């Protein structure tokens, strides 16, 4: 359940932040929620990847629909991979690693052995 909460929280806050700020600020948001939820590396990565990937996909898909894919199909021919796939990978990887860094930085209390 916590995983779903982290995904939702990250996506919502990223959405608000990204309206105003550059793309990489989503990494800070993903990091913050990775730290807060502290789910451990694997789950945190998954949460970060899915939240940013989904958010970006949804936002881009709505633009694509509203503009009848006018630019999507052109940019598709410019890049080596489908833009949606590429975008989800790019956004997802950054979100995932940022979230993972968050949880690692916080760490598990009992794991502290120094």
């Amino acid at each position: 359940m916590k995983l779903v909460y982290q995904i939702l929280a990250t996506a919502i806050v990223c959405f608000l932040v990204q309206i105003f700020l550059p793309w990489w600020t989503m990494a800070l948001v993903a990091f913050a929620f990775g730290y807060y939820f502290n789910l451990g590396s694997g789950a945190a990565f998954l949460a970060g990847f899915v939240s940013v990937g989904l958010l970006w996909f949804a936002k881009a898909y709505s633009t694509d629909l509203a503009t009848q894919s006018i630019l999507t199909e052109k940019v598709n021919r410019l890049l080596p991979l489908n833009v949606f796939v590429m975008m989800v990978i790019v956004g997802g990887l950054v979100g995932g690693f940022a979230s993972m860094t968050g949880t690692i930085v916080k760490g598990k209390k009992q794991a502290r052995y120094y």
Partner: protein
Amino acid sequence: MRILKIVLSSFITIALVYSLNRSWNFGKPIPPLGKFLDPFHGFWKNAESKNDKPADVHLKGLTGEVSILYDSAMIPHIYATNEEDLFFAQGYVTAFHRLWQMEFQTHAAAGRISEILGSAAIDFDRGQRRLGMVYAAKNSLAEMEKDAQINLLASRYTEGVNAYIHTLTYDRLPIEYKLLDYAPEDWTPLKSGLLLKYMAKTLNIGDKDFEMTNALKLFGKETLDLLYPDNEKVGDPIVDNPNGWKFKPVALEGVAPATEPELVQINTLEKSEPDIGSNNWAVAGSKTASGSPILCNDPHLELNLPSIWYIIHMNAPGYNAMGASLPGSPCVISGFNDSIAWGETNAQRDLVDWFKIKFKDKSKNEYLSDGNWKKTNKVIEKIIVKNASPYYDTVVYTHQGPITYDETFHADSEKKYYAFRWVAHDPSKELITFYLLNKSKNHGDYMKALDNYSSPAQNFVFASVSGDIAMRIQGKYPVRRKDEGKFVLDGTKTFNEWQAFIPNDQNVMYKNPARGFVSSANQYPTDETYPYYVTAPNFEAYRNRRINQRLGEMSKITPQDMMSLQADNYNLKASESLPSWLALLDPSKLNAAEKNAYEKLKSWDYFNQINSEGASYYEAWLHQFFPMIWDEIENSKIPLPYPTSYTTIKLIKEKPDLRFFDIQSTPEKETITDVARKSFSESVEEIEKWKKEKGKEPTWAAYKDSYIQHLARLEPFSYHVIHGGNGSIVNAHGKRNGPSWRMVVSLEKSGVRAWGVYPGGQSGNPGSPYYNSMLDVWTADRYLNLHFNTTAPQMQNFSFAHQTLKSDK
């Protein structure tokens, strides 16, 4: 262990963000993927829908409010309360739709493409600088700044462009900036000057002096006159006014000294294609159905996207002009107002010379002129290169101009130096001409406007509501002695230099000729009684005759008739050459494919229509035939000029035993019959190969495969189009060049009516529905009705969006 994990994970995250926030080049440029793909700010924000409307804005620098109504084709109709705001608004809307293109073209003019594309563009950039493009623009700018009126319009236009640039955030940057990862810099009046020099380079830099010099040495004078006559004497000149030149011409003393035979081994810069030309004409009221003059213009240029033209309607008290503007330059360039209409075609004239320079020593610090050693001026050009250190190039200038080619540039083994003299290097003030034309009320105003015009030389057609039609071939033309300027010149004697220019009032022009129309299509400018020597790299031989023949026989002309003439696909060249070529073939000796081609050619009606197969076989044959005839020129190691199609066709008919018809690579001695047969077989083979590859019949438009290319050569932003026509045909649409703007204006007393179209769209954004919205209209040879109402409320019915520019003081 945990520290290591933290370090590793943070490092990966930061490295990812860093590498996705910048562009890379792995043989192919990669945009900054994170930034570019971000759906909140990246390329997605450049996608537009038909319902997106320009919003009202507050702008610093306006004196009052400006209303802009956009019609359904996204053409802006600007209503300002004074001219200051009018030019500001023109700069603003043009940048709004075309910013990237404006900057890219002026960067290209200035030799700054390496800044954007990297080291692959260094040779191009050096060429631009070595031709003196920036030098020319700076000379013009200095002249412009002396004139208060030009200064005002250039600076207000600049402020408008910059007002737009300053509203931009990353998400609203044109997509090309996002792809190539750079940002626009501020606009300056120098950039408007550079744009006009870019046009001058496209239109007026043609020359074949090196090639002709080599031909003189290799072939001798007699052959030269046969292959490259000054005047092919075909059809009517633009202005036919025998014995009507009542003035005392400027005469230079002496005769041009004979050219010293020599060979020049220079790999010259790419020249503009002979296909670049244009049509314009005006018919008097006596020939039209309405009784009012009709004026037409279609400039033929390389067809690119965003288009070279941008339609605009500019309205302020005392100002009401509409037509095609050049993004980057204020005013309408080819258009009309409520009293007159005007348009341009290129004036063919030799405006370039190469002077052979004698340097004192290797340092190139001094050169000989009239027995004295003069100091050169060395300009160090710094070329900024993306992802690399800057490239420095030293260009030596003499008083004649820059030494374009030297041992470091396109002339590796050459130890001779030539200074480049080009009329576009001289101070000039074209902008005032267009400003005055935009406001002209009658023929007298048009004449005054043109008195200020020097480069690029153009044939200016004119018609007025009051019923006048006129043509004036305006430019700054050096007075030349016979044969002067065809070859390289001796730069050590000022006797050989440009000593005088033809006075404006002695330029070729006339008004209301008896035949009831004026026309120009880049042909020979005037009759033989004109008292100045005229020469040019080439003159057009076919379009002009077809146009004049049609205009001569037409009466009760309607605007629709004029549109049909602009779209006329009759191939006069084919009609004059094909029958005699077919007669050289022996039908009994043809194979099946050749027989089929022969029949297609025989039954062809000489129209290059979309579906004509005859046209494909003809053009393919010509494409094999001419290089086979001129193999001596084609395979030459030193640059030589090509004879024109007209001369080639004439020689095939009249001189079947010309020595050039022998194919040099074979031991046999070929005659024209052998060459015709051999080239015919090869062309049929080529078409058979094409048929197999494409799996379809070789209809003309499919075989021609016209292409309209994005300026950065991005394939997904470019289009293949199905359209008839070809070079030398009135509808001059070849593979890459063609009618870049088509305009028909009916100058009726009850109100001027006009139609226009170009192959592209008003928006320069590939993500906008208006990027290519006119393309299909143009391809179908249809036009947009250009709504020309004098007040904003009258425009409401046609407007799709209303934008107000408000003053933000």
